[in-house]
């Protein structure tokens, strides 16, 4: 096997940690911890972006790194923490599926997404092509996280970690999207968060809890 340069090793390490964090989120039930994990993910993403920017010398990557730092590491986690305090929702109740089961499904998903990424990675010219599979895995794991949670808050966290996965994917596949798109996406995410914040308060004042089983009245089989 040929020797991979150090920075690449770092990058791969970041990728691995991202995946690990996703699993951790899948298992984690305390919301505060969940948010912290999200922040960590953001941080990893930031580091990875910086490394990549430094390596490829594409300036727009610096910008997106900055975006990541500002948005995903600082702004959103902070926002979430504030919300958590305001609404004091510390604990998530038992997830719909017990942890081992979730883990198992997670593993299968990871295998699936690696298999999925294989053909793409072969085409990719980027140095980080192998981490594309990890990006897909992160997305799908976040998906599962959202499925298995019962609290609105933790679903949102899952949603955001999916966003992280997307960014990582974009980066590792193509060194990021065109600027205009990146800005748009970032803006959307931010707005989404604000909307959600509003949402939480509304839901809260209606049901005085953020438990999702309050939100199961609109259905067909009654």
């Amino acid at each position, binding site marked *: 096997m040929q020797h991979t340069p150090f920075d690449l090793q770092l990058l791969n390490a970041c990728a691995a940690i991202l995946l690990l964090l996703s699993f951790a989120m899948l298992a984690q039930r305390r919301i505060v911890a969940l948010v912290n994990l999200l922040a960590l993910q953001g941080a990893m993403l930031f580091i990875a972006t910086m490394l990549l920017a430094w390596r490829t010398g594409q300036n727009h990557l610096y910008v997106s790194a900055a975006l990541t730092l500002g948005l995903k590491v600082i702004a959103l986690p902070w926002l979430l923490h504030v919300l958590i305090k305001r609404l004091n929702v510390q604990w998530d109740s038992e997830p719909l599926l017990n942890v081992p089961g979730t883990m198992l499904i997670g593993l299968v998903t990871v295998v*699936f997404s690696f298999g999925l990424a294989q053909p793409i990675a072969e085409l990719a010219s980027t140095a980080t092509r192998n981490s594309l599979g990890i990006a897909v895995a992160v997305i799908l794991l976040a*998906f599962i996280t*959202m*499925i298995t*949670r019962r609290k609105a808050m933790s*679903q949102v966290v899952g949603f955001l970690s999916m966003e992280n996965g997307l960014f990582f994917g974009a980066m590792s596949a193509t060194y990021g999207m065109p600027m205009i798109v990146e800005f748009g996406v970032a803006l959307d995410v931010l707005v989404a968060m604000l909307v959600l914040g509003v949402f939480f308060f509304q839901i809260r004042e209606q049901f005085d809890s953020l438990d*999702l089983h309050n939100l*199961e009245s609109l259905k*067909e089989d009654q």
Partner: protein
Amino acid sequence: MVGAVGLLRPHSVALVRRVLFPLGALIGVALAIVAALSLTEPVEQATLHIGLPDLPMHVRLDNLSRVFLALLGSASAGVSLFAAGYFRKGEGTAPGVLGLQYHLFLASMGFVLVADDAYAFMVAWETMALTSYFLVTAQHGIPEIRSAGFLYLLMAHVGAIAILLSFGILQGGTWLFSFDAMRASTLSTPWATAAFLLALFGFGAKAGLLPLHVWLPEAHPAAPSPVSALMSGVMLKTAIYGVLRVTFDLIGDPLWWWGLIPLGLGLATAIFGVVFAAVQTDMKRLLAYSSVENIGVLFTGIGLAIVFHGVGMTELAALALIAVLYHSLNHAFMKSLLFLGTGAVLHATGERNLGRLGGLIHRMPWAAWLTLVGVLAIAGLPPLNGFVSEWLLLQTFLFSHEVPQPFVNMLLPLGAAIVALAAALAGYVMVKFFGIVFLGQPRESSLAAAHDVGGFEKAGLVWLAIGCVLLGLLPRQVIHSLAAATEQLTGAAPNLAGQSWWLLAPLTERDVSYAPLVLLAVIVAVVVATFLIVRVVYRRPVRLAAPWDCGCGRLDPRMQDTAEGFGQPIRHIFVSFFAMERDLPSPHDLAPRYRVKVSDRLWQGAYLPIADLLQRAANSVAWLQQGRISVYLTYSFITLVVLLAVML
């Protein structure tokens, strides 16, 4: 010409009554005359530049269309005249809107008859269903009427879907949906059969062919009487037109055994309809079931025509078709007349239930005597028109043993027996209808206030009655013009050459003949003669007295036979047809009540199960959507994974 009818717009009640409907009637007459006169002319075709960009609407005026246009015009003229006097304020839909719908209905029927491509046909066909639906639900305050309307539109729509499918097959790979293309295309036997069956289903649903008849006895009574008249008299015929058009024109060469299907269904429908008519207690339902019977007779004729055409006996096929067309024409007049009669009664008394009518011949002689004409005609009595078509049909049946197919040539003649039975039963039904509505003593005191029909209504009734008589008395002339259509469809026509104008002898090889005029002359002569003789020879006074009451002292109207009573023998004989629920009073009952409810086995047997099935299917998919967002997310997840797997 047809468009002109549609262009009529309602302004005010008075206008609608005084101007629009008579105008509609005039246009109807004009339409009839033009169509009838142009019967021998060549086919006219035109393309309107509307419709789909790749499929502009075609219209075509050939003899078949002309015959049915004449039917439409002449019958609707009478109905429109009547309607001019009939519709009043404060009955459900505003008269103005009603007038608009009414004339749109007429226009769409006309357009159905001239449409020459699938799209135009479907547009006209569905517009017809729609407008008639609105007319049926004109008095939508009543729940029964609403459900009847829904059932009607549903059946119409299902039928339309079948027709559309049939057209889809008929274009036969050319993907041109003009009828010309369909005529040109040749289909393999299985496809042609499928197209025929679909068309039979679709048009049968509109015509009320067994087992698709359920909407008919609901919808016809629900509608205002002129509308019932149009629906029963004219709209059902558009279905007949459709079957003829598809079978003989678009498919072109039907296989002989196709005919057995409409034949069998037709016979079943005829018996079924007339037997149910006999046990009805609502006069409009009774007439509606009688329409079912006549539809059955018509389809029998069509089936016979197909069989003959299929085995190459084209003259007989032509004769059978003549019988069909003639009967359509007759039924249009008779049934419209009868429905209008009931309309008059309805307006005069506000009663539809036979159990509350009676003795109206004294209060409303015009309506009574004119209805009597229709009654005698539809009962198939010479010299009126109903008899002629049945005579023709029976005559054709007498050849059916010559069909070169084993068994079939044995079975077909039995069809004649069934037709005869149906005709005789029709007589029974009509005696019941007329006798209970107009004869005897009024069963309710309120009937004393009944008033006779007004001017417009009278005119409409007279027009139709005259139609019945003339169609009965001048069969040769009528057949002569109908022959143009059969010429077009089967390439053959009965040979009427060299016969005297008052005689009808369509079958040359067996000199059978029928001269209604002569019969009428004899009967009238004898009646007048005896009358005069009796008058002259024995001039004795006539004393009026109370009828014989068997000495019981007081005779009251409730002693008369009720509608149920009059239907009793039929219920007794054809008991297996009905799903009956009866409660008979016990001998010790102080206030004895007799109640019988006769309903259609098919309804419980076929229709309710289908609805039930659908509902259960709906319930079984409902759990898919149980409101839990994680479940929904799982759907998305699975979908994504599956798609990725597929795409990989």
